[in-house]
């Protein structure tokens, strides 16, 4: 830098300026440009600092809005058309015909709704109860707790598709260890994923295995933040273990319970990977594990019924929002 063109470098000029006249004129000139430069830099900095709220948030918001709002608007538009076949094919506005067709479809749509609700409700109840038991079990420190916490973390981080494949082998009616182990206590053999009536329950079992640790960890974090003395005070007052849990601990960690319910509820409604990896397209040959998400995926990418798929998706999205509101409203009451 020090050897660069002097006229571009005011500091250099000032340092090497020899003659009287030069030092009189040049510094005048350089100080002006310096001031100018710092003024623009300063004004940009001022501007950036003043508007930092939006400047920092805008890129993320623009990205999300672009990826979210345009597709959402497009889906709403498609749900009123007969779009199907190729994405480039001509489509016609058909009013609410899709909605009528979907809402009167007792063959695929309504069973999928009930399966979605049954799956979500079932796994939520199981995961909340088991997760709470695990959290209470691990609450107080013990030797080897680091190993236990790593162990319960493993299902959580495992790739859901791989988990599906893993359980597909374990629950295989002929070569799976599940039936073999149960035969020792005189149970089975069960068809598990292969059975028309047991498939959905089996996928729920897999979901419980994978995600109960999540509930346990969230509740454990809630429990760890509690003061010990309230529990002890209640104990001294003669409250039983159940009373202490129900009247002291549970109300105190209720915010964590709601967070766990919300996070798990949203993801359980949208479960796809486990269902697709164990039963394939359409939720199996009898659609036995076809939830709304699987149904909408099939309509979109197996049958290319984009219009109908969009209708199903919007109704599904409505269901998710309704479930979230139901949970958060109750949270307000507490």
């Amino acid at each position, binding site marked *: 830098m020090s050897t660069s063109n002097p006229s571009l470098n005011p500091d250099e000029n000032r340092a090497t300026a020899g003659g009287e006249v030069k030092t009189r004129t040049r510094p005048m000139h350089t100080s002006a440009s310096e001031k100018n430069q710092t003024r623009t830099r300063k004004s940009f900095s001022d501007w950036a*600092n003043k508007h930092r709220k939006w400047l920092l948030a805008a890129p993320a918001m623009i990205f999300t809005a672009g990826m979210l709002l345009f597709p959402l608007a497009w889906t709403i538009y498609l749900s009123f058309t007969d779009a199907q076949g190729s994405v480039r094919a001509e489509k016609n506005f058909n009013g609410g015909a899709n909605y009528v067709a979907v809402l009167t479809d007792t063959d695929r749509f309504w069973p999928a709704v009930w399966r979605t609700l049954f799956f979500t409700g079932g796994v939520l109840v199981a995961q909340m109860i088991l997760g709470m038991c695990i959290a209470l079990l691990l609450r107080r420190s013990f030797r080897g707790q680091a190993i236990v916490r790593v162990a319960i973390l493993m*299902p959580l981080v*495992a790739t859901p598709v791989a988990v599906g494949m893993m359980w597909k082998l374990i629950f295989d009616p002929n070569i799976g260890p599940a039936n073999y182990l149960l035969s020792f206590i005189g149970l089975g053999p069960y068809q598990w994923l292969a059975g028309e009536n047991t498939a959905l329950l089996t996928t729920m079992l897999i979901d419980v295995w994978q995600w109960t640790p999540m509930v346990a960890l969230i509740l454990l974090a809630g429990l760890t933040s509690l003061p010990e003395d309230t529990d002890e005070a209640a104990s001294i007052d003669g409250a039983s273990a159940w009373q202490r849990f129900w009247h002291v601990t549970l109300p105190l960690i209720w915010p964590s319970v709601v967070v766990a319910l919300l996070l798990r509820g949203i993801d359980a409604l949208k479960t796809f990977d486990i269902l697709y990896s164990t039963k394939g397209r359409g939720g199996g040959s009898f659609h036995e594990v076809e939830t709304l998400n699987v149904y909408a995926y099939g309509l979109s990418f197996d049958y290319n019924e984009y219009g109908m798929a969009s209708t199903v998706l919007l109704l599904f999205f409505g269901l998710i929002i309704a479930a979230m509101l139901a949970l958060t409203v109750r949270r307000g009451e507490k």
Partner: protein
Amino acid sequence: MRTSKAFKIFRVAAITLLVLFMLIPIFWMVISSLKTNVQIYDVKNAFNFTPTLENYQKVFDQANFGFFMWNSFLVAFVSTGISLVLGVPAAYSMSRFLMKRQAIVVMMARVIPAVSLLVPWYYLFALLRMVDSYAVLILSHMFVSLPLILYIMMGFFDGLPQDLEEAGQVDGLTPIGAMMRITLPLSVPGIATATILSFIFSWNNFMFALVLSGANTKTLPVAIFDFIGYASIDWGGLMAAASVVTLPIMIIALFAQKYVVSGLTAGAVKG
């Protein structure tokens, strides 16, 4: 508090059972991946076998999993990187200026069923001839990473005191300067948490790659399906493939346990 001996025994038994229930399925997957198909079919002699790496050879040589692994890594790495650049400043701003409504818009991304976005994305990207490119996969994975990072980092910034920044400003730093020189260095644990979680979620993501990837960009979760034929399943190969997909993530989680847990439980305590 006093605890009876019976309770102590019950507790140890319950914890042991829990650990076994969590780990045995994974263990079964891994030992099955080291068996021939004939040995897998013989469930009565499950532990009587000589381990073979034959299945892994198949996975890497024939099924080309090295390439899919690179795809998975590249997509997860780049989408996480860009999401951090966009997400961390946004989380800072939304936390400091209490932009609740704006945050909800971004969180919508977490709630909406992804299939409803895939149809328009597919349509748009097909028109732009971008399907089966890394760019599309990275963009779609960012859609998952960004809300996740935002959620974790907002919680983290909420917990950082503002006094330090104010002190820095008294000493002549601009607000942005204070953020860069004081808050960001303090946020390294939060950023580490967000990074690891975002990487894991991207690595595990299945649906976006199922639709938007092709022969050139296929990621590991989609590649597993190569081992399921119409008529029969190559169980040994399938278990080896599943192990290759999921074990790297488990190893990361093993070493970064603290961060993974704090990321997964973010927002649990503040209520």
